[in-house]
């Protein structure tokens, strides 16, 4: 049941998003220099296709609801794993903080702190090994990118 509810929400989001996209497309200037279509027609077709796919999904959901397989599956109780969702959200937030500090703190400071933080949760109780992995990985990647490949990574306040 939850899966079908999520799919219905998906179809609604897609139709709404496509409507917004079509509105943004209608606001584009109708330039047609040497081109009978201009920049608006192709996106309009794409937006129309997205709306059609959303409607098609609604039909598929309706068909699934009527099927005997669904009736059997609906009797099984699904349990929500809030802890898992919370950990994933925390990980996304931690990654966003890392990206915010990437330029400002520099790769050599931001990366080991970020990795050590992650490892402390996902590889619990191995503090020394985690510190070695975080530091070693940062040093190897920094050397590979800056020295071997000539790709500069941000240095931050460090005089590297």
């Amino acid at each position, binding site marked *: 049941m939850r899966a079908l509810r*999520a799919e219905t929400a*998906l*179809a609604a989001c*897609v139709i709404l998003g*496509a409507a917004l996209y079509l509105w*943004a*497309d209608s606001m*584009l*200037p109708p330039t047609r*220099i*040497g*081109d*009978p*279509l201009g*920049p608006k027609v*192709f*996106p309009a077709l*794409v937006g129309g*296709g*997205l709306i*059609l*796919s*959303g409607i*098609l*999904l609604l039909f*598929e959901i309706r068909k699934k609801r009527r099927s005997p397989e669904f009736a059997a599956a609906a009797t099984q109780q699904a349990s929500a794993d809030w802890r*898992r969702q919370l*950990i*994933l959200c925390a*990980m*996304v937030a931690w*990654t*966003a903080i*890392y*990206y*915010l500090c*990437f*330029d400002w703190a520099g*790769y050599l400071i931001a*990366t080991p702190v*970020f*990795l050590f933080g*992650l*490892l402390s*949760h*996902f*590889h*619990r109780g191995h503090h020394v090994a985690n510190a070695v*992995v*975080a530091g070693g*990985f940062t040093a190897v*990647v920094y050397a*590979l*990118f800056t020295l071997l*490949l*000539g*790709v*500069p*990574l*941000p240095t931050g306040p460090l005089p590297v």
Partner: protein
Amino acid sequence: MDSWHGLLHGLAVAATPTHLLYTLIGTFIGTMISHLPGIGPSAGIALLIPVTFGMDPTTALMMLAGIYYGCMYGGAVTAILLNTPGDAAAVMTVLDGYPLARQGRAASTLAIAAISSFIAGTMGVTALAFVAVPLAALALHFGPTEYFGLIFFALSTVSALTGDSLAKGLMSTFLGLLLATVGIDLQSGVPRFTLGLMELQDRVNFLVVVVGLFAVAEVSRMVEGTMEGTLHIVRVKGRLWFSRAEWRRAWPAILRGAGVGFFCGAAPGLGGTIAAMLSYILEKKISRHPEQFGKGAIEGVAAPEAATNADTCGAFVHLLALGVPGSGATAVIMGAFIMYGIQPGPMLFNSHPDLVWGLIASMYIGNMMLLVLNLPLVGVLARILYVPPGVLLCIILGIASAGVYSFNYNTFDLFLALVFGLLGYAFRKLDIPKAPLLFGLILGHTLEQSFRQAMTISSGDPTVFLRSPIAAFLLACAAVSLGMSAVAKRRRRATLGIAQERIARG
């Protein structure tokens, strides 16, 4: 240059020390990536593209192609030892590979998988060399109308054949096309859907999308995996070879699997998973012992492994001859081609013969390297399976971040990758296939240009697409593939469901 001369010329190019070294590095990295559950060839190639900056394109593409077929080669190892496919295409290998390993036959099963991959890979490369040249010659006569038909057909088949729902496949494709419209329109100079962000004026970076959608999203899968419990690894014992009886049962399955796999690879959108599934069903149907399938039939390992590796070569046919990718991973390789300033397609055989023939010939050499890597060294390489998943996921996220930053030296790309990572997570939770989005994004620009050029030539008359026999035929094929998809999907769901249930049960 005909295929024989092309192959000989390619072997001379591929056999230089630098190219041999990078082919070895590519195949080795591909094998390692295939041992990491979750990281498939698309994400692996995308992550490694920054490493190729500054390299000669031929060398770089040999390495990236090596990662692709190395990944397909090694996907069987985790399927057999861990009951978890290293890549999606190895899902059918789990059905018989893991039971065989549990019966103490892990070594012979791994050997059969490696030999199947080698034979099918070699047959596939040969077929690629001989099919791609006439196809490219035919494609030289294609104009914008025919190209529109071809890309429309490729997008239709990938929408119809990947995933369980036609609506979701279409949704993913249209989302990819939507992303392809972001940026400055080259014909009119109008910025479209950039939300006022300067970074989006030069279009959405394809590689950022790939890393986000595949690598970052797969990290979330690994997070859930580490929280759900432990993985049970079967240790490899005994000599890595098989008995005569096993070989007698395996070799016809290998030949049939190679044929099915190459055909599936050459049809855009079918992909390795369907190739493996079709070859498995075929073997079970014609076997004298169908009851052994699912309990430890050696044909159940040989055929899907041969099919996935021949499929890899088939997927290159479209990329090299037509400039249309045949799979998600070849879409990423196409992104690399474009990044190096080379447009894959029919002109490639004339404009870059060293590159195209060198690349094809390097696959022969890479196949031999993979046989060595996957037979005597499988025990050593399988040790990567013992690295704690918690450590691996952190390392993958670290590599993805450094790689994405190096595309444009811009933290905007990092946030964009994170957004696509979240989108990839949502795709996985809602069972939306990711490959159609990649196809839409990489082919969207060419599709729009072909459409507009064809309409300009015909002064805005849309019947131009029906007046060209090739375009009309391709559009009719697209309509048939969309129409037929609903029936075929129900059968596929049932077969794949058995494999996925087995993996879930552990």
